[in-house]
Protein backbone atom coordinates (compact mmCIF):
# COMPACT_ATOMS: atom_id res chain seq x y z
CA UNK A 1 0.00 0.00 0.00
CA UNK A 2 1.30 3.36 -0.93
CA UNK A 3 -0.62 5.58 1.41
CA UNK A 4 -0.20 8.79 -0.52
CA UNK A 5 -0.95 7.91 -4.09
CA UNK A 6 -3.34 4.96 -4.15
CA UNK A 7 -6.73 4.48 -2.57
CA UNK A 8 -6.88 2.25 0.46
CA UNK A 9 -8.09 -1.30 0.15
CA UNK A 10 -11.50 -2.00 1.60
CA UNK A 11 -9.94 -4.49 3.99
CA UNK A 12 -7.52 -1.89 5.30
CA UNK A 13 -10.42 0.39 6.07
CA UNK A 14 -12.32 -2.38 7.86
CA UNK A 15 -9.27 -3.41 9.90
CA UNK A 16 -8.60 0.21 10.81
CA UNK A 17 -12.23 0.82 11.78
CA UNK A 18 -12.14 -2.28 13.99
CA UNK A 19 -8.91 -1.15 15.67
CA UNK A 20 -6.92 -4.09 14.30
CA UNK A 21 -4.25 -2.22 12.37
CA UNK A 22 -0.80 -2.17 13.93
CA UNK A 23 0.67 1.22 14.81
CA UNK A 24 2.68 1.69 11.62
CA UNK A 25 -0.20 0.70 9.38
CA UNK A 26 -2.60 2.87 11.40
CA UNK A 27 -0.34 5.90 10.90
CA UNK A 28 -0.14 5.28 7.17
CA UNK A 29 -3.92 4.89 6.90
CA UNK A 30 -4.51 7.96 9.01
CA UNK A 31 -2.17 9.99 6.82
CA UNK A 32 -3.93 8.84 3.68
CA UNK A 33 -7.39 9.60 5.11
CA UNK A 34 -6.23 13.12 5.88
CA UNK A 35 -5.54 13.83 2.22
CA UNK A 36 -8.01 11.60 0.34
CA UNK A 37 -11.66 12.66 0.37
CA UNK A 38 -12.91 9.48 -1.32
CA UNK A 39 -11.29 7.12 1.19
CA UNK A 40 -12.31 9.31 4.08
CA UNK A 41 -15.96 9.24 3.00
CA UNK A 42 -15.77 5.47 2.72
CA UNK A 43 -14.15 5.20 6.13
CA UNK A 44 -16.61 7.52 7.86
CA UNK A 45 -19.48 5.51 6.36
CA UNK A 46 -18.03 2.24 7.67
CA UNK A 47 -17.30 3.72 11.08
CA UNK A 48 -20.81 5.11 11.31
CA UNK A 49 -22.35 1.73 10.47
CA UNK A 50 -20.08 0.01 13.00
CA UNK A 51 -20.87 2.61 15.66
CA UNK A 52 -24.57 1.96 15.20
CA UNK A 53 -23.91 -1.66 16.16
CA UNK A 54 -23.52 -0.37 19.72
CA UNK A 55 -27.31 -0.07 19.91
CA UNK A 56 -27.63 -3.83 19.53
CA UNK A 57 -26.18 -4.22 23.02
CA UNK A 58 -28.97 -4.83 25.53
CA UNK A 59 -29.69 -1.59 27.39
CA UNK A 60 -28.16 -1.50 30.86
CA UNK A 61 -27.95 1.24 33.44
CA UNK A 62 -24.49 2.10 34.78
CA UNK A 63 -24.01 2.41 38.55
CA UNK A 64 -25.13 5.87 39.70
CA UNK A 65 -21.71 6.83 41.09
CA UNK A 66 -19.95 6.33 37.76
CA UNK A 67 -20.82 9.84 36.58
CA UNK A 68 -19.30 11.50 39.65
CA UNK A 69 -16.30 9.22 39.40
CA UNK A 70 -15.64 10.25 35.80
CA UNK A 71 -16.09 13.94 36.56
CA UNK A 72 -13.78 13.74 39.59
CA UNK A 73 -11.12 11.97 37.56
CA UNK A 74 -11.46 14.58 34.81
CA UNK A 75 -11.24 17.46 37.31
CA UNK A 76 -8.07 16.03 38.75
CA UNK A 77 -6.36 15.70 35.43
CA UNK A 78 -3.99 18.36 34.38
CA UNK A 79 -5.33 19.76 31.11
CA UNK A 80 -1.77 19.81 29.75
CA UNK A 81 0.01 16.62 28.70
CA UNK A 82 2.06 15.21 31.53
CA UNK A 83 4.76 12.62 31.92
CA UNK A 84 4.59 9.37 33.83
CA UNK A 85 6.84 8.78 36.79
CA UNK A 86 8.05 5.88 38.88
CA UNK A 87 5.20 5.94 41.38
CA UNK A 88 2.81 4.07 39.13
CA UNK A 89 4.79 0.86 39.23
CA UNK A 90 6.02 1.30 42.78
CA UNK A 91 2.88 0.41 44.67
CA UNK A 92 0.76 -2.66 44.31
CA UNK A 93 -2.92 -1.85 44.64
CA UNK A 94 -6.08 -3.82 44.37
CA UNK A 95 -7.83 -3.36 41.12
CA UNK A 96 -10.31 -0.55 41.37
CA UNK A 97 -11.99 1.65 38.85
CA UNK A 98 -8.76 3.63 38.94
CA UNK A 99 -6.12 0.95 38.92
CA UNK A 100 -2.45 1.53 39.46
CA UNK A 101 -1.78 -0.44 36.31
CA UNK A 102 -4.07 1.71 34.20
CA UNK A 103 -2.22 4.77 35.43
CA UNK A 104 1.02 3.64 33.95
CA UNK A 105 -0.51 2.47 30.69
CA UNK A 106 -2.72 5.52 30.36
CA UNK A 107 -0.13 8.11 31.20
CA UNK A 108 2.89 6.46 29.68
CA UNK A 109 2.65 7.94 26.23
CA UNK A 110 2.18 11.46 27.39
CA UNK A 111 4.82 14.04 26.74
CA UNK A 112 6.26 16.29 29.41
CA UNK A 113 5.95 20.00 29.09
CA UNK A 114 9.06 20.64 31.08
CA UNK A 115 8.82 24.39 30.65
CA UNK A 116 5.36 24.53 32.18
CA UNK A 117 6.39 22.43 35.15
CA UNK A 118 9.52 24.56 35.64
CA UNK A 119 7.38 27.70 35.78
CA UNK A 120 5.15 26.08 38.41
CA UNK A 121 8.23 25.06 40.34
CA UNK A 122 9.63 28.57 40.36
CA UNK A 123 6.31 30.06 41.42
CA UNK A 124 6.06 27.56 44.27
CA UNK A 125 9.61 28.23 45.38
CA UNK A 126 8.99 31.96 45.38
CA UNK A 127 5.71 31.59 47.23
CA UNK A 128 6.98 29.40 50.04
CA UNK A 129 8.59 30.92 53.11
CA UNK A 130 12.35 30.74 52.93
CA UNK A 131 14.04 28.49 55.41
CA UNK A 132 17.60 28.49 56.66
CA UNK A 133 18.11 24.96 55.32
CA UNK A 134 18.25 24.53 51.57
CA UNK A 135 14.91 23.37 50.17
CA UNK A 136 14.58 21.00 47.28
CA UNK A 137 11.49 21.05 45.17
CA UNK A 138 10.05 18.38 42.91
CA UNK A 139 7.24 19.05 40.45
CA UNK A 140 4.08 17.03 40.81
CA UNK A 141 3.10 14.83 37.93
CA UNK A 142 -0.63 14.65 37.33
CA UNK A 143 -1.72 17.89 38.96
CA UNK A 144 -0.04 21.26 38.78
CA UNK A 145 1.95 21.79 41.94
CA UNK A 146 5.08 20.64 43.68
CA UNK A 147 6.52 19.02 46.75
CA UNK A 148 9.11 21.03 48.65
CA UNK A 149 11.45 19.17 50.97
CA UNK A 150 13.47 20.82 53.71
CA UNK A 151 15.69 18.49 55.69
CA UNK A 152 13.51 15.39 55.90
CA UNK A 153 10.17 17.17 55.99
CA UNK A 154 8.02 17.62 52.90
CA UNK A 155 5.27 20.10 52.14
CA UNK A 156 2.81 19.54 49.31
CA UNK A 157 1.45 22.52 47.42
CA UNK A 158 -2.13 21.22 47.11
CA UNK A 159 -3.77 24.26 45.54
CA UNK A 160 -4.22 22.52 42.19
CA UNK A 161 -6.36 19.63 43.46
CA UNK A 162 -9.96 19.89 42.27
CA UNK A 163 -13.27 19.09 43.96
CA UNK A 164 -14.10 15.53 44.97
CA UNK A 165 -17.43 13.73 45.14
CA UNK A 166 -18.94 13.81 48.61
CA UNK A 167 -17.65 11.11 50.91
CA UNK A 168 -14.13 11.21 49.50
CA UNK A 169 -10.92 12.82 50.64
CA UNK A 170 -7.42 13.27 49.28
CA UNK A 171 -4.81 11.14 50.98
CA UNK A 172 -1.04 11.52 50.72
CA UNK A 173 1.33 8.54 50.65
CA UNK A 174 5.03 8.18 51.05
CA UNK A 175 6.23 5.32 48.88
CA UNK A 176 9.50 3.93 50.07
CA UNK A 177 11.03 0.63 49.00
CA UNK A 178 7.85 -0.35 47.14
CA UNK A 179 5.58 0.11 50.17
CA UNK A 180 3.13 2.96 50.71
CA UNK A 181 2.58 4.53 54.10
CA UNK A 182 -0.25 6.99 54.79
CA UNK A 183 1.00 10.55 55.15
CA UNK A 184 -2.07 12.62 55.89
CA UNK A 185 -5.37 13.79 54.43
CA UNK A 186 -6.38 17.07 52.88
CA UNK A 187 -9.47 18.54 51.30
CA UNK A 188 -9.85 20.33 47.97
CA UNK A 189 -8.70 23.94 48.11
CA UNK A 190 -6.03 23.27 50.71
CA UNK A 191 -2.88 25.34 50.35
CA UNK A 192 0.43 24.00 51.55
CA UNK A 193 -0.06 20.69 53.36
CA UNK A 194 2.66 19.09 55.51
CA UNK A 195 3.46 15.50 54.57
CA UNK A 196 3.40 13.41 57.74
CA UNK A 197 6.63 11.65 58.69
CA UNK A 198 10.16 11.88 57.38
CA UNK A 199 11.03 11.53 53.71
CA UNK A 200 14.29 10.59 52.03
CA UNK A 201 15.68 11.21 48.55
CA UNK A 202 14.20 8.71 46.12
CA UNK A 203 10.91 8.41 48.01
CA UNK A 204 7.78 9.07 45.98
CA UNK A 205 5.01 11.19 47.41
CA UNK A 206 1.67 10.25 45.86
CA UNK A 207 -1.89 11.48 46.28
CA UNK A 208 -5.02 9.37 45.85
CA UNK A 209 -8.72 9.98 46.39
CA UNK A 210 -9.97 7.77 49.21
CA UNK A 211 -13.20 7.23 51.13
CA UNK A 212 -13.75 9.86 53.83
CA UNK A 213 -11.49 9.21 56.79
CA UNK A 214 -8.71 7.85 54.60
CA UNK A 215 -7.49 4.32 53.96
CA UNK A 216 -4.60 2.36 55.48
CA UNK A 217 -3.42 1.47 51.97
CA UNK A 218 -4.19 3.19 48.66
CA UNK A 219 -7.34 1.87 47.01
CA UNK A 220 -7.09 3.88 43.82
CA UNK A 221 -4.66 5.20 41.25
CA UNK A 222 -2.57 8.17 42.37
CA UNK A 223 -3.90 11.39 40.95
CA UNK A 224 -0.49 12.99 41.32
CA UNK A 225 2.97 12.07 42.45
CA UNK A 226 6.45 13.54 42.82
CA UNK A 227 9.82 12.03 43.56
CA UNK A 228 11.82 13.54 46.41
CA UNK A 229 15.17 14.78 45.08
Amino acid at each position, binding site marked *: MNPDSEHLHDEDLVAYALGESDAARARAIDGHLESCDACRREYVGLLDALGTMAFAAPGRVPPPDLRASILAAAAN*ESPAPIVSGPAAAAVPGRRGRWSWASLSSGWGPRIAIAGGLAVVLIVVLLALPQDTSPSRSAPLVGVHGAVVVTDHRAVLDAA*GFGPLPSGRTYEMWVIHGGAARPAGLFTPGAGNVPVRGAVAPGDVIAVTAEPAGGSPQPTSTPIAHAQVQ
Partner: protein
Amino acid sequence: MTEIAASRRTTTRADAMHLSDEALIAQIARGDDDALGAFYDRFGRVVYSLALRIVRDTQLAEEATQEAFLAVWRTAGDYRASRGSARTWLLTLAHRRAVDRVRFEQRRVVGNVPLDDTTEREIREVIPSAEDEAWVVFERERLVRALRQIPDGERELIELAYFDGYTQSELADRLGLPLGTVKRRTFTGLGRLRTLLEAER
Protein backbone atom coordinates in the same frame (compact mmCIF):
# COMPACT_ATOMS: atom_id res chain seq x y z
CA MET B 1 -8.98 26.05 43.34
CA THR B 2 -12.50 27.36 43.14
CA GLU B 3 -11.24 30.04 40.76
CA ILE B 4 -9.77 27.44 38.46
CA ALA B 5 -13.01 25.49 38.47
CA ALA B 6 -15.08 28.60 37.89
CA SER B 7 -12.99 29.82 34.97
CA ARG B 8 -13.44 26.50 33.19
CA ARG B 9 -17.16 26.44 33.68
CA THR B 10 -18.64 28.24 30.76
CA THR B 11 -21.76 26.17 30.18
CA THR B 12 -24.55 25.65 32.65
CA ARG B 13 -26.27 22.33 32.86
CA ALA B 14 -29.44 23.71 31.29
CA ASP B 15 -27.46 25.21 28.37
CA ALA B 16 -25.62 22.00 27.73
CA MET B 17 -28.80 20.00 27.25
CA HIS B 18 -29.60 21.98 24.14
CA LEU B 19 -26.20 21.81 22.51
CA SER B 20 -25.48 19.42 19.65
CA ASP B 21 -23.08 16.56 20.32
CA GLU B 22 -20.41 18.38 18.33
CA ALA B 23 -20.96 21.63 20.21
CA LEU B 24 -20.58 19.75 23.49
CA ILE B 25 -17.27 18.35 22.29
CA ALA B 26 -16.10 21.87 21.46
CA GLN B 27 -17.02 22.95 25.00
CA ILE B 28 -15.28 19.93 26.49
CA ALA B 29 -12.16 20.85 24.51
CA ARG B 30 -12.19 24.16 26.41
CA GLY B 31 -12.12 22.28 29.71
CA ASP B 32 -15.83 22.70 30.45
CA ASP B 33 -16.67 19.91 32.88
CA ASP B 34 -20.41 20.61 32.79
CA ALA B 35 -20.27 19.83 29.09
CA LEU B 36 -18.54 16.54 29.90
CA GLY B 37 -21.32 15.80 32.41
CA ALA B 38 -23.95 16.56 29.78
CA PHE B 39 -22.17 14.35 27.25
CA TYR B 40 -22.15 11.55 29.82
CA ASP B 41 -25.84 12.09 30.56
CA ARG B 42 -26.53 11.72 26.86
CA PHE B 43 -24.38 8.68 26.10
CA GLY B 44 -23.32 7.11 29.40
CA ARG B 45 -25.90 4.33 29.21
CA VAL B 46 -25.19 3.51 25.59
CA VAL B 47 -21.45 3.37 26.25
CA TYR B 48 -21.85 1.30 29.41
CA SER B 49 -24.28 -1.10 27.69
CA LEU B 50 -21.85 -1.53 24.80
CA ALA B 51 -18.90 -2.06 27.13
CA LEU B 52 -20.82 -4.56 29.24
CA ARG B 53 -21.90 -6.50 26.16
CA ILE B 54 -18.26 -6.77 25.08
CA VAL B 55 -16.46 -7.40 28.39
CA ARG B 56 -19.32 -9.24 30.18
CA ASP B 57 -18.18 -7.98 33.57
CA THR B 58 -19.63 -4.95 35.34
CA GLN B 59 -16.32 -3.83 36.88
CA LEU B 60 -14.50 -3.98 33.55
CA ALA B 61 -17.43 -2.27 31.85
CA GLU B 62 -17.24 0.59 34.35
CA GLU B 63 -13.51 0.93 33.75
CA ALA B 64 -13.94 0.95 29.99
CA THR B 65 -16.74 3.51 30.25
CA GLN B 66 -14.67 5.76 32.49
CA GLU B 67 -11.68 5.50 30.19
CA ALA B 68 -13.77 6.31 27.13
CA PHE B 69 -15.15 9.51 28.68
CA LEU B 70 -11.74 10.49 30.04
CA ALA B 71 -10.34 9.98 26.54
CA VAL B 72 -13.02 12.40 25.33
CA TRP B 73 -11.96 14.86 28.05
CA ARG B 74 -8.29 14.61 27.13
CA THR B 75 -8.57 14.57 23.37
CA ALA B 76 -11.72 16.58 22.59
CA GLY B 77 -9.43 19.15 20.95
CA ASP B 78 -8.34 16.50 18.45
CA TYR B 79 -11.89 15.66 17.37
CA ARG B 80 -12.36 16.28 13.65
CA ALA B 81 -15.86 16.46 12.25
CA SER B 82 -14.46 15.29 8.89
CA ARG B 83 -13.85 11.88 10.49
CA GLY B 84 -17.45 11.34 11.55
CA SER B 85 -20.03 12.50 14.05
CA ALA B 86 -19.16 13.13 17.69
CA ARG B 87 -21.35 10.17 18.60
CA THR B 88 -19.49 7.84 16.27
CA TRP B 89 -16.21 9.16 17.68
CA LEU B 90 -17.28 8.39 21.24
CA LEU B 91 -18.62 4.95 20.34
CA THR B 92 -15.37 4.16 18.51
CA LEU B 93 -13.32 5.21 21.56
CA ALA B 94 -15.55 3.13 23.82
CA HIS B 95 -15.45 0.13 21.51
CA ARG B 96 -11.62 0.23 21.36
CA ARG B 97 -11.29 0.39 25.12
CA ALA B 98 -13.72 -2.45 25.72
CA VAL B 99 -12.22 -4.66 23.01
CA ASP B 100 -8.70 -3.94 24.29
CA ARG B 101 -9.84 -5.20 27.68
CA VAL B 102 -11.34 -8.34 26.21
CA ARG B 103 -8.17 -9.03 24.26
CA PHE B 104 -6.01 -8.22 27.27
CA GLU B 105 -8.04 -10.12 29.84
CA GLN B 106 -8.75 -13.02 27.49
CA ARG B 107 -12.30 -12.77 28.68
CA ARG B 108 -14.15 -13.44 25.52
CA VAL B 109 -15.85 -16.76 25.37
CA VAL B 110 -13.27 -19.17 24.10
CA GLY B 111 -14.28 -22.32 22.32
CA ASN B 112 -17.21 -23.27 20.20
CA VAL B 113 -20.06 -21.08 21.19
CA PRO B 114 -22.64 -21.65 18.47
CA LEU B 115 -22.94 -18.66 16.22
CA ASP B 116 -26.70 -18.54 16.62
CA ASP B 117 -26.45 -18.29 20.39
CA THR B 118 -27.02 -15.25 22.54
CA THR B 119 -25.54 -12.67 20.19
CA GLU B 120 -27.98 -13.43 17.47
CA ARG B 121 -30.98 -13.63 19.75
CA GLU B 122 -30.12 -10.33 21.34
CA ILE B 123 -29.81 -8.60 18.03
CA ARG B 124 -32.73 -10.11 16.19
CA GLU B 125 -35.21 -9.11 18.85
CA VAL B 126 -35.65 -5.70 20.26
CA ILE B 127 -35.26 -6.18 23.96
CA PRO B 128 -37.50 -3.55 25.47
CA SER B 129 -36.33 -1.79 28.56
CA ALA B 130 -38.33 0.80 30.43
CA GLU B 131 -35.04 2.47 31.27
CA ASP B 132 -34.13 3.27 27.68
CA GLU B 133 -34.72 6.70 26.34
CA ALA B 134 -36.87 7.03 23.23
CA TRP B 135 -33.99 7.89 20.90
CA VAL B 136 -32.07 4.79 21.99
CA VAL B 137 -35.10 2.61 21.34
CA PHE B 138 -35.48 4.25 17.93
CA GLU B 139 -31.83 3.62 17.03
CA ARG B 140 -32.05 0.03 18.18
CA GLU B 141 -35.18 -0.67 16.15
CA ARG B 142 -33.61 0.94 13.09
CA LEU B 143 -30.52 -1.24 13.51
CA VAL B 144 -32.45 -4.46 14.07
CA ARG B 145 -34.54 -3.86 10.94
CA ALA B 146 -31.35 -3.36 8.96
CA LEU B 147 -29.58 -6.39 10.43
CA ARG B 148 -32.49 -8.66 9.54
CA GLN B 149 -31.88 -7.89 5.87
CA ILE B 150 -28.21 -8.81 5.92
CA PRO B 151 -27.22 -12.36 4.97
CA ASP B 152 -26.46 -14.48 8.03
CA GLY B 153 -22.86 -15.18 7.05
CA GLU B 154 -22.05 -11.48 6.84
CA ARG B 155 -24.02 -10.44 9.90
CA GLU B 156 -22.38 -13.07 12.08
CA LEU B 157 -18.92 -11.90 11.09
CA ILE B 158 -19.77 -8.30 11.94
CA GLU B 159 -21.21 -9.30 15.29
CA LEU B 160 -18.27 -11.51 16.23
CA ALA B 161 -15.75 -8.85 15.24
CA TYR B 162 -17.61 -5.98 16.90
CA PHE B 163 -18.90 -7.56 20.10
CA ASP B 164 -16.35 -10.29 20.74
CA GLY B 165 -13.25 -8.52 19.53
CA TYR B 166 -12.14 -11.29 17.20
CA THR B 167 -9.64 -10.21 14.60
CA GLN B 168 -10.26 -11.15 11.00
CA SER B 169 -7.52 -13.83 11.18
CA GLU B 170 -9.01 -15.30 14.36
CA LEU B 171 -12.41 -15.45 12.68
CA ALA B 172 -10.92 -17.21 9.68
CA ASP B 173 -9.34 -19.83 11.97
CA ARG B 174 -12.41 -20.21 14.11
CA LEU B 175 -14.86 -20.54 11.26
CA GLY B 176 -12.56 -22.48 8.96
CA LEU B 177 -12.85 -19.89 6.20
CA PRO B 178 -10.11 -18.38 4.05
CA LEU B 179 -8.96 -15.04 5.46
CA GLY B 180 -9.84 -13.30 2.19
CA THR B 181 -13.41 -14.57 2.47
CA VAL B 182 -13.75 -13.27 6.03
CA LYS B 183 -12.45 -9.85 5.03
CA ARG B 184 -14.63 -9.61 1.96
CA ARG B 185 -17.78 -10.73 3.75
CA THR B 186 -17.19 -8.35 6.64
CA PHE B 187 -16.68 -5.45 4.28
CA THR B 188 -19.69 -6.37 2.15
CA GLY B 189 -21.87 -6.81 5.24
CA LEU B 190 -20.83 -3.44 6.65
CA GLY B 191 -21.49 -1.81 3.29
CA ARG B 192 -24.99 -3.30 3.27
CA LEU B 193 -25.58 -2.21 6.84
CA ARG B 194 -24.52 1.31 6.00
CA THR B 195 -26.80 1.48 2.96
CA LEU B 196 -29.76 0.06 4.89
CA LEU B 197 -29.24 2.43 7.81
CA GLU B 198 -28.98 5.42 5.51
CA ALA B 199 -32.16 4.37 3.72
CA GLU B 200 -33.96 4.34 7.08
CA ARG B 201 -33.03 7.90 7.92
